[in-house]
């Protein structure tokens, strides 16, 4: 046990992150099910309005900062980046362990805020409600999220330095796997956006704790200034959540189409473009908040510009599949689910970027459905796809393919039934974050709650058969999927220093025409 808590091996730290994040995901998921049960009926009959407000706030805080942001970078990224770079470990192993401890400290603080009575400000902490009018444990939760931010900055630092300084001999930038490209773009955002959130959270604590007027309008402060700062972090933060998912899908689709990625340079460049443009569009959250007309038009234009690289990625994935040899394994089903639902999520984002349309749809269930489509439909599918794809490499064992496919299809259907009704609720004008709602929205809400139960079941399945595979799964061998990444050239699970002899990279990372045939077929359950 002590060796695990003081390890500097990036693989063990990744597994520590996996365990902690899964606990937070389960907690966030349970809160979500209670919210959906409450919303199945029009009145606040399961929980009171105050409790409901605390529930949706905690669901937001836990899911955003303690699951979505760290999920792929801190688990898959920590485990795979050194392997994909042919390096024994990340640049600063001890900083990596420190990031996990800070993450756990942040989690403990946030949980203690929850136990002490929870917070009811929404994960956005809008002022002057959060600083002056809320009577919940804001300072405690704010410090918890601050520590989670610090932890993600440490991870970002590690990835940037490792990608620059620890690439294998012969591995030029254009020979990097696309997953490494997306991790690099993500860590640029992690390092450059999180400090704005960190300072903002401290300012909330200073204003609320020490009674120093900063954002309170009554004292010359400006709530809109708070919103500028919050969204300057939070929009790049949604790209922190989605870019690694795109990186995973850019690994899965070539592997299971048995062909090179279509437009490698375009996909890599679009990751960087999304990271850079992501910093310029935050104002589209404030179209109706009283932002000047001039600023709103500029932000609307830039928001459309940032959608172009995302479009390039989706079409490039389709190009990869064209005339490939498609092999519908569980990771591939999750990848295709990602592509489909990310297109819907991205499209509804465009609707919200249109100024006139946003006036009607802002702060309604349409927005709730939009970001859940991208987070649950996109990001979570990619995370599960990556989890199944690299599970043999991490555990050395194969999971049951049949159960994997059942869970994937179940999640896809459950997702559609849960969130498509919410799009219609939004256009009909139901504001978000409402504990009770008028009668006429009852039908669609109960439909959505039914879908949520399927989703909850769908998430339990992978937990079961993946853990079972640790005991009953067949040994997977070094390269069950016949993939071409450096991580498949070493044993599963890899030895402590990853490679017996540091690999030499002479060819591009997706040489599928000459890649070894997958051995997984013979192992099929």
């Amino acid at each position, binding site marked *: 046990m002590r060796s695990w808590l003081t390890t500097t091996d990036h693989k063990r730290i990744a597994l520590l992150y996996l365990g902690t994040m899964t606990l937070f995901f389960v907690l966030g998921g349970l809160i979500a099910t209670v919210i959906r049960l409450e919303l199945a009926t029009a009145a606040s009959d399961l929980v009171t309005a105050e409790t409901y407000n605390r529930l949706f706030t905690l669901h937001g805080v836990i899911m955003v900062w303690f699951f979505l942001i760290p999920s792929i970078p801190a688990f898959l990224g920590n485990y795979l980046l*050194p392997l994909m770079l042919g390096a024994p470990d990340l*640049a600063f192993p001890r900083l990596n362990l420190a990031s996990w401890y800070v993450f756990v400290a942040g989690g403990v603080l946030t949980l203690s805020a929850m136990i002490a009575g929870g917070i009811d400000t929404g994960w956005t902490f809008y002022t002057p409600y959060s600083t002056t*009018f809320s009577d919940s444990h804001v300072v405690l939760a704010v410090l918890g999220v601050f520590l989670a931010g610090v932890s993600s900055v440490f991870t970002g630092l590690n990835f*940037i330095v490792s990608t620059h300084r620890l690439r294998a001999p012969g591995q030029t930038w254009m020979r990097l796997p696309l997953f490494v490209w997306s991790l690099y773009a993500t860590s640029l955002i992690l390092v450059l956006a999180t400090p704005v959130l*960190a300072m903002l959270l401290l300012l909330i604590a200073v204003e609320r704790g020490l009674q*120093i007027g900063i954002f309170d309008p*009554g004292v010359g*402060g400006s709530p809109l200034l708070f919103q500028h*700062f919050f969204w300057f972090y939070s929009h790049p933060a949604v790209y922190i959540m989605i870019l690694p998912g795109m990186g995973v899908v850019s690994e899965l689709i070539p592997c299971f189409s048995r062909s090179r990625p279509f437009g490698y340079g375009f996909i890599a460049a679009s990751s960087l473009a999304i990271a850079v443009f992501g910093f310029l569009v935050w104002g589209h959250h404030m179209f109706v908040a009283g932002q000047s007309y001039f600023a709103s038009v500029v932000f609307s234009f830039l928001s459309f510009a940032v959608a172009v690289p995302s479009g390039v990625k989706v079409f490039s994935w389709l190009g990869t599949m064209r005339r490939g040899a498609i092999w519908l394994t569980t990771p591939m089903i999750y990848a295709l689910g990602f592509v489909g639902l990310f297109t819907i999520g991205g499209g509804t984002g465009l609707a919200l970027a249109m100024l006139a349309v946003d006036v009607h749809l802002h702060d309604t269930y349409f927005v709730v459905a939009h970001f859940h489509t991208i987070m649950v439909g996109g990001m979570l599918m990619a995370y599960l796809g990556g989890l199944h794809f690299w599970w043999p490499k991490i555990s050395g064992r194969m999971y049951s393919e049949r159960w994997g496919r059942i869970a994937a299809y179940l999640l896809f259907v459950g997702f559609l039934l849960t969130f498509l009704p919410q799009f219609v609720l939004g256009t009909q004008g139901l504001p978000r974050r409402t504990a009770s709602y008028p009668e006429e929205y009852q039908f669609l809400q109960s439909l959505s709650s039914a879908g949520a139960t399927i989703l909850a079941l769908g998430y339990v399945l992978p937990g079961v058969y993946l853990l079972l595979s640790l005991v009953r799964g067949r040994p997977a061998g070094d390269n069950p999927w016949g993939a071409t990444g450096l991580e498949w050239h070493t044993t599963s699970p890899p030895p402590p220093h990853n490679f017996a002899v540091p690999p030499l990279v002479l060819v591009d990372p997706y040489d599928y025409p000459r890649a070894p045939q997958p051995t997984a077929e013979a192992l099929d359950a």
Partner: protein
Amino acid sequence: MPDDVREPFADSQHQRDAVALGMWAFLGQEVLFFGVLFVFYTSLRVRHPELFAAYGPRLDWRLATIMTATLLVSSFTMALAVRFAFTRARRALLVALAATMALGAAFLAMKLWEYAHHFARGETPFVDLAGNGPGPGPHSFFGLYFVLTGFHALHVLGGLVVLASLWLVAWRTPAARLRATPTMAVGLYWHFVDIVWLFLFPALYLAARLT
């Protein structure tokens, strides 16, 4: 003799470059961390310029000039310390680090004296926030002043703690096995904290004259 090389690096130069890149990425992040405070300053200044005209002169620009000079000299001694670390001049390193710490401590002492002075004159940032605040006033300006200089002072304090631990390690390690890279990293951090003050100084202390 180069530093002893840690796990993933080929040689000490490779390791030094990596630490430099990591440190600069960390300082890039700090630029935005303090950047929020400077945007807050600009927002208050654009929306309530009369506050700066009214309460700017209350800040003692003479003391601030001395504090700026103190920090600049401490940056100078820190740069020398980094040079001595890499050339293994252990005694000179100890002296340079001690000088840097002394100047940093002097800066903090002046800062605390200034705070006490403001508190004594009732120029405090605290305000009754029961939602019906009395509108922008002295507490807004001094709120800005205390938050900006407060976060900077905390960073100076943090720097002093790290410098002290660096000094102890240098004291206990024979020149042969002394690692220079940590001194470089601490040096970068210390210079950055000085740069933040270079912008804080005109913004706050000369603000009154700038309206």
